[in-house]
């Protein structure tokens, strides 16, 4: 099937009032969720997965990917207006966006963020289509040993690229992997770690665990740091940047979009790293670097185009190999599983309408985001000012009903609250929760492929299979190098502090 034919199938999925309404609703929810500080794109997608339960798989994934792409733009609204990034990646947007608001040019900041997000998102989708399709074709030839090595590489890069303590990220991944071993063993049928409790035979259901780790833990964190302070928002102007101003930043948008997509492809890198690197590179390439940090439109454009384009990049390994490139992709992988779909090369063969439906929906979602953003920003700003005292209780009831809806089981609700508490504890002591989720979603792939490879060809298969061997070496390097760097950093800082104490 050629690309044109595939896209005909893709667009046929999204043509009709129902998919279009779903895309519009998804974009609005995504922008609002992204704009609310404390709600990350992964939280927003996790909370909405249960709502997609009774939809057809294609429509459900169209809804969730529309939320995903729009939430990255949504994060910039509060970053520009009140210096409170709605998403972690929007922190870079705030560097120049908020100074623009202080100068009375909030409209220019928001307009630049919107256009840069739209163009970045479109470039990301274009690269996604160009990369994912051939990669999926190659992946059809992969052996179980290759898949095991790739999944392990995915886990390794997540651990190495996570901010802060690498050791803690690895422990979080291992926690997720161990949790995934609970239940009936998929190969031998032996019941593992179930304590003869039939509720554990299928292990922990993924969606309640995701909702607990991403949404409930956020509310518990807010409880601990509760000050009762409301949100304050000044009056803002709504004047958009001129065409001449857009033309001045066109190369920045283009460059940052490409950088963002490429960084997004690497599992674990994510939108935040993409935004930081693009911002830095744009500053170096700019003819007015001194303006960066003081309200530069180039700065806003670099950050926003990079974080939006990283969405397309991160979807490449998810769709082509079944390896999530970011925390939100891990949640999306859960949504695929909920609808009995397995992302990877076979998805392109067996369900082209899903893959090309998602591609087409992402293109349309970008256009919808531009239109809604141009006319709806003022309204979104009002919604975002909903008091936290109302928003957080609502998040909890949505989390509870969402967990129950998956299987109609109160056990899942209990698991959701339990994972919420675990998530809070982990985050309190600097352990990221995204690696736990990646461990849970990749655990099955790692174990099944490892054991199949050994059963087929013995343990020697991992060095006889060249691709598996190389990828395993790279994965090993990805595990060891950041640990070594962290150890050296600790040694250096300890040496410095000892020196200063002596002097």
């Amino acid at each position, binding site marked *: 099937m050629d690309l044109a034919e595939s896209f005909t199938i893709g667009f046929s999925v999204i043509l009709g009032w129902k998919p279009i309404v779903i895309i519009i609703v998804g974009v609005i929810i995504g922008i609002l969720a992204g704009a609310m500080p404390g709600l990350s794109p992964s939280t927003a997608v996790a909370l909405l997965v249960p709502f997609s339960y009774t939809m057809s798989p294609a429509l459900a994934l169209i809804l969730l990917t529309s939320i995903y792409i729009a939430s990255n733009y949504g994060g910039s609204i509060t970053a520009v207006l009140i210096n409170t990034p709605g998403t972690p990646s929007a922190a870079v947007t705030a560097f120049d966006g908020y100074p623009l608001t202080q100068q009375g040019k909030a409209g220019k900041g928001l307009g630049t963020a919107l256009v840069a997000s739209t163009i970045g998102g479109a470039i990301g989708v274009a690269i996604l289509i160009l990369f994912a399709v051939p990669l999926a074709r190659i992946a059809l030839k992969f052996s179980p040993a290759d898949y095991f090595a790739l999944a392990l590489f995915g886990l390794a890069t997540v651990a190495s690229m996570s901010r802060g303590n690498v050791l803690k990220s690895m422990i979080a991944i291992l926690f997720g992997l161990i949790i995934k071993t609970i239940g009936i063993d998929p190969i031998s049928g032996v019941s593992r770690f179930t304590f003869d409790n039939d509720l554990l035979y299928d292990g922990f259901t993924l969606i309640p665990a995701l909702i607990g780790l991403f949404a409930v833990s956020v509310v518990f964190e807010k409880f601990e740091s509760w000050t009762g302070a409301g949100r304050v928002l000044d009056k803002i102007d709504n004047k958009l940047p001129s065409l001449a101003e857009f033309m001045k930043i066109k190369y920045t948008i283009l460059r940052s979009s490409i950088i963002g997509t490429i960084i997004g492809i690497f599992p674990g890198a994510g939108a935040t790293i993409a935004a930081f690197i693009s911002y830095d590179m744009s500053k170096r390439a700019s003819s007015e670097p001194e303006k960066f940090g003081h309200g530069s439109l180039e700065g806003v454009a670099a950050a926003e185009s990079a974080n939006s384009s990283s969405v397309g990049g991160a979807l490449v390994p998810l769709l082509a190999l079944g390896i999530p490139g970011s925390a939100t992709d891990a949640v999306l992988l859960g949504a695929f599983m909920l609808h009995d779909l397995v992302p990877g090369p076979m998805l392109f063969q067996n369900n082209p309408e899903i893959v090309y439906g998602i591609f087409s929906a992402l293109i349309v979602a970008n256009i919808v985001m531009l239109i809604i953003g141009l006319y709806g920003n003022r309204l979104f700003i009002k919604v975002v000012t909903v008091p936290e005292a109302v928003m957080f209780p609502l998040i909890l009831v949505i989390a509870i009903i969402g967990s129950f*809806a998956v299987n*109609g089981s109160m056990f899942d609700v209990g698991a959701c609250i339990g994972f919420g508490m675990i998530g809070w504890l982990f985050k309190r002591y600097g352990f990221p929760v995204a690696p736990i989720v990646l461990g849970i979603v990749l655990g099955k792939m790692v174990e099944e492929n490892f054991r199949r490879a050994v059963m087929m060809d013995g343990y020697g298969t991992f060095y006889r299979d060249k691709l598996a061997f190389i990828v395993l070496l790279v994965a090993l390097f990805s595990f060891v190098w950041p640990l070594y760097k962290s150890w050296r950093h600790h040694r250096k800082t300890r040496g410095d502090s000892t020196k200063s104490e002596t002097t």
Partner: protein
Amino acid sequence: MEYFSAGSGLVLWSSLLFLAGCGTVLALRFSKKKDYAGQAIVPTAMIALSLLLWAITFSFPSEEAGPAVVPRLWIFWSVLLAGILLLFCFTGRTDKDPGSGRLGFLLTGVILTIGYFFSIEILGYFISSFLFLALLMYLLSYRKPLVVFLVCSGWVLFSYIIFYKLLYIQLPLGFIENFMYQ
């Protein structure tokens, strides 16, 4: 190790691990490195959990690439890495504990959430959700009765229409169900 993999042996093993875990954190709490006691909770719990599961793996059939292989692999790395982190806690080579926030307030919120979980079975989803939302908003110092009422009843109405009627999710009705079928 097979004795500890099931029955009374497993109970004994888990009790020992629990006591050892608590002892480790308490030892740190009352030592010179007390600022790292909180940091030790997660690695200690990970080691205890891993060792508990490790004992259970001895009840699995032993075969090449069998059901025990991968869990043991994760357990090995987990004990090793959590052990290193625990060592860092004892030597003060990791981050110090964060300042304690409003833990009492958090505990109230968590208890309220757990209470909500249990009340769903007794009072039913709709009544419990209304009460939970109202109580939590009150706890978070929101004092606009009309808005509270509108938000609570709005959510109940929304969940009834979307989940109960449109998505056919059989939300627990609690004692209302008994009245309905009497």
